[in-house]
């Protein structure tokens, strides 16, 4: 949608501006949440929350709108992940049973285990590195991540490195147990 042309030809109402913002950013907000939660339904729920929250508090024409949404999507989904830790423990136990029934049990088990470990580790990271990683992994550019977190582009590299080093260590430790 060409926002520029549209705003020149007509005076947009707040509602229209919000719908345009939703159309432009929904996929990316879901993408960030999905990357964190690895669950598309939950990611959609997070996106709903984030947009409702934005709509309540901010104007859709605000320049910071996309940055705000990206950041909120990362934090909201990470918050869910933290809240879900206990539930995940239960799921791990379940998955162990299911894993035994798959065709290549050993390999499947290892992949699942790694994924769980990495998300459990993600939930334990400091919010900022975790958010930077979630946004970058879902396809946002360095500039977009920097804008969403209110940091310089140079710092995004530092945050990513911190997050990845911690996650790698955690997964290595987890699988060697």
């Amino acid at each position, binding site marked *: 949608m060409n926002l520029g042309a549209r705003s020149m030809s007509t005076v947009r109402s707040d509602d229209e501006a919000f719908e345009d913002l939703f159309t432009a950013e929904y996929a990316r907000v879901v993408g960030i949440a999905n990357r964190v939660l690895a669950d598309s339904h939950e*990611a959609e729920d997070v996106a*709903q929350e984030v947009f409702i929250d934005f709509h309540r508090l*901010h104007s859709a024409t605000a320049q910071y709108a996309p940055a705000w949404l990206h950041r909120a999507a990362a*934090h909201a989904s990470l918050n869910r992940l933290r809240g879900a830790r206990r539930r995940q423990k239960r799921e791990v136990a379940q998955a162990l049973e299911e894993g035994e029934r798959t065709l290549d049990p050993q390999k499947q088990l290892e992949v699942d285990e790694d994924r769980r470990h990495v998300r459990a580790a993600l939930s334990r990271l400091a919010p900022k590195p975790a958010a930077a990683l979630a946004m970058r992994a879902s396809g946002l550019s360095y500039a977009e991540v920097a804008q969403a977190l209110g940091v310089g582009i140079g710092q995004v*590299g530092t945050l990513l490195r911190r997050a990845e080093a911690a996650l790698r260590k955690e997964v290595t430790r987890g699988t060697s147990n």
Partner: protein
Amino acid sequence: MAHLTDGTLRRMVDDPDARAGDDAAHLEGCTECRGRFEGISDDAHSVASLLAVPEAPVEVARAFDRLRSTPASRQRSVLRLPLMRPSSRPVVLAFAAVIAGVALVAGVVARDYSLNYTPNTVTTVPVTVADMQALSQLSNYGDVTWTRQPQLQAATSASDAEALAGMTAPTVSNLPSTISTNITYGAMTQAEAVFTFSAAKAQAAAAAQGKALPALPAGMDGATLTIKVGPAIGEIYGDLQKPAAGSDISQMTLPQLVVVKSSAPSATSTQVTVKQIEDYVLAQPGITPELKAALNAIGDPSTTLLIPIPVQYATSKDVTVQGVKGVALGDNTGVGAGVIWVKNGVVYAVAGSIKQDDAITIANNLK
């Protein structure tokens, strides 16, 4: 040239802009940095594959319909303080917003309309973020106009701030050595806001939430609530940090120390009593049972300044400060603490990334 930092090396993995100039030349010729680059690159690719997920199917139109059909009362929100709007405004403005929010709560619950409401003690009301947001929805039930806009100005000295606010600036007489003596002053002139109830607006707001408007008391339509805030002076010790876009409370960096002095807010009403306005506001759709309970729990609000505290962020306790009852927030971890008290019609607040004990000591020695 010094070796490249981990952050720079990490960017070189997948940011084309980073692989240019001196840094790229250095990497080319430096065995040590190349070695580190390999490790960092390996971690990045490994984590990327671990985080790989099937793409979420995206149906924008369906999602937008779902959003529109969500009743406001069922809307959940992520944890975020609505007062901390992303903007380039200095922190002092955020504090002014807090004071204004406090005045709003105080105004809503002040019971005696015939007298100027002036609190002389403080108490906290635990609120959820949804409650705070419900308060900001007051504009759905009428018109809020600033009859006197709050003028906020940064000042370079205490005397400038005093001249702007027309009151003396507070002085911290026992500043802990760990706190910067780099002080930023802010001054706010007295501001006055008038809230005029509109039956039509309230009706529309209730309908939008799929609920009926509670029966309108006689005189409520067009009734006004006038709230005066300030003047106030704020002093921020240490480096100023702007709240970044989309700030939430866990991301906020509290200044080392903030001291605020403000005339106590006052509230008056026309046509109906403030008590009636209070009752009517509480009866509106969207006001949560939690906030109702909290507001109703206040014994005599006409003399009490209410401080809304998000339930999940702070603990509070009554303390005696400068011989009067005050409220201390936060704890002794040093993450954040504050003290608020009212003396002789003036509200004082001392807060920062300090321990509660330190906040109380500073408060007791504030001149």
